[in-house]
């Protein structure tokens, strides 16, 4: 994977709250230890850039948004659930169970 194909992460925090600080530490650790070179990331303070938060539909904070690759994923919270964060940030869509023909709606 080349640098230009890096995935894009954006972490939304609100000022210097305990949760904000923890989330920032957690994502930095993760990227350094497990996802080096896979993602480019930026940190956005909602208090300073509410417009960006509007665009990304940020509700709970902190929220880590994987903007690319698709599908867009949002990880809510201080990212202390390391396993969940890692598995959701694996590149590519998570393998969904085969959809099957789907049940027909009875009318």
């Amino acid at each position: 994977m080349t640098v230009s194909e890096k995935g894009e992460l954006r972490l939304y925090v609100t000022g210097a709250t305990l949760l904000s600080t923890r989330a920032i530490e957690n994502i930095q650790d993760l990227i350094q230890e497990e996802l080096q070179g896979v993602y480019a990331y930026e940190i956005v303070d909602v208090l300073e850039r509410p417009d960006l938060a509007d665009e990304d539909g940020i509700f709970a904070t902190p929220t880590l948004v994987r903007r690319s690759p698709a599908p867009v994923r949002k990880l809510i919270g201080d990212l202390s659930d390391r396993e969940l964060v890692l598995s959701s940030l694996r590149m590519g869509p998570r393998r969904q169970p085969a959809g099957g023909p789907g049940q027909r709606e009875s009318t």
Partner: protein
Amino acid sequence: MTDRAPAVGIPRLEVGIPGFDVVAEGGIPAARSTLVAGTAGSGKTLLGVQYLVAGIERYGQGGVLVTFEEPADEIMRNVRSLGWDLRAHHAAGRLGIVDVAGVAGEEIFEAGQFDFQGLLARVERAIEKVSAVRVVLDSLTGIFPQFTDQHAVRRELARVTARLRALGVTTVMTAERSEEYGPIARYGVEEFVADNVVILRHPLNRERRRRTLEILKFRGAPHQHGEYPFSIDGRSGVTVIPLAETGLKTRALPYRSSIGKPAVDKMCGGGIFQDSIVLVSGATGTGKTMMVTEFLAAGLRSGQRGLFFSFEESRPQILRNAASWGVDFGDAEAEGMLRIDSRYPERLGLEDLLVEMRHQIEEFRPKRLAIDSLSVLDRVSSGALFREFVVGMTSLIKEFELVAMCTSTADLGGGTQSTELTPVSTITDTIIVLRYLERASEVHRCLTILKMRGSAHDKTIREYTIGDTGMELGGPVSGATGILTGSSAVQDDPPPP
């Protein structure tokens, strides 16, 4: 400050939804949050949006809509048919929108502890941008399924409402309930977010949905109790129908005006009062519609607009009958002095009819209102609904200071219909009874005034005939009995002792 502040001291924010402020005795508590809870489809979102639109359009107050469940675009589309252009208000900087309704196709995971500070930051910015006075959160119950940590959601929502309160905005929050008469709302949201609770219901009643609004509590502030019917229509959204003596300043205006015929005015002690309701009760063919016609004609003669709701006869019939009594309703309509609304009430629920009457009165601004007949309405509805209709109609008449005449059909025998029309007779100021009278094997018609509130009146029973100029009052009938009980007859000769 405590919640034990004197009740009258709680500042209110006039909501501007028709009828709501009457029931709320002035509006919702200002700078607080009010929870509007209702089952699915009860009109919560509509009420919330109307609250914002009324603020913008009637009071020049900015508003912010925070939507958790339905995307803002969808809400905008849905209310467009009511003439509410949220997009325009948004573009003009009067309406802020914070859409947190999730984007289709995005995947959300909960990976640790969270707060709602991000939401608050967005809401605060929106409030600031439009100088919002009103904020709507729709709906709180839509938030819970998005998170596994329900305790955190409760704590954070409580922080959000505390912050909104500190900002001084008046917030309406909606929440869903699962039963019409069960817990206030799902997830017990009322316990931690709102001092004030309004419930919307729409239970099925005799195969029709009947919408009601109840103010469950306004902390520290007085309000009307009980369920008030409301309707949702395509022209004005929610209209609450204030019942009973709610806010009625029954000013007995000293002015008298003509009931139609000078001779009948004289019997009433000089005419009927402004702001009053006359009930004409009689069997079919006694001349009730004629009295209504003359009542409206008398108004037209003194330059008073008339609004005529007819549930029994079609417009051509009405015009024809009026012409036969020497009254030209066609001209009056053409001149904009009269409006005839002829309809079959079966097609419309009584709440909707009340709202329709309000629209017409607001639009046409009549001085006189005629309803022919109330019996039809009673027939097409349940007793409770009819009572509510009558009370709602009375409020309208008093509010717009109209003189009204309603008719009710009695049995041919003429027996009093007082059982089914009890709600009507108690609110009327004047009751005129028309009856058939048997005398020497001929049928005559007679009239008596049963009640005339606030004035002396002629208590005799008078004979009358119907001619080319309508009602012609004759002399008193002596010896008539049974006018009220039904079997009216004249005993010309007193029975021999």
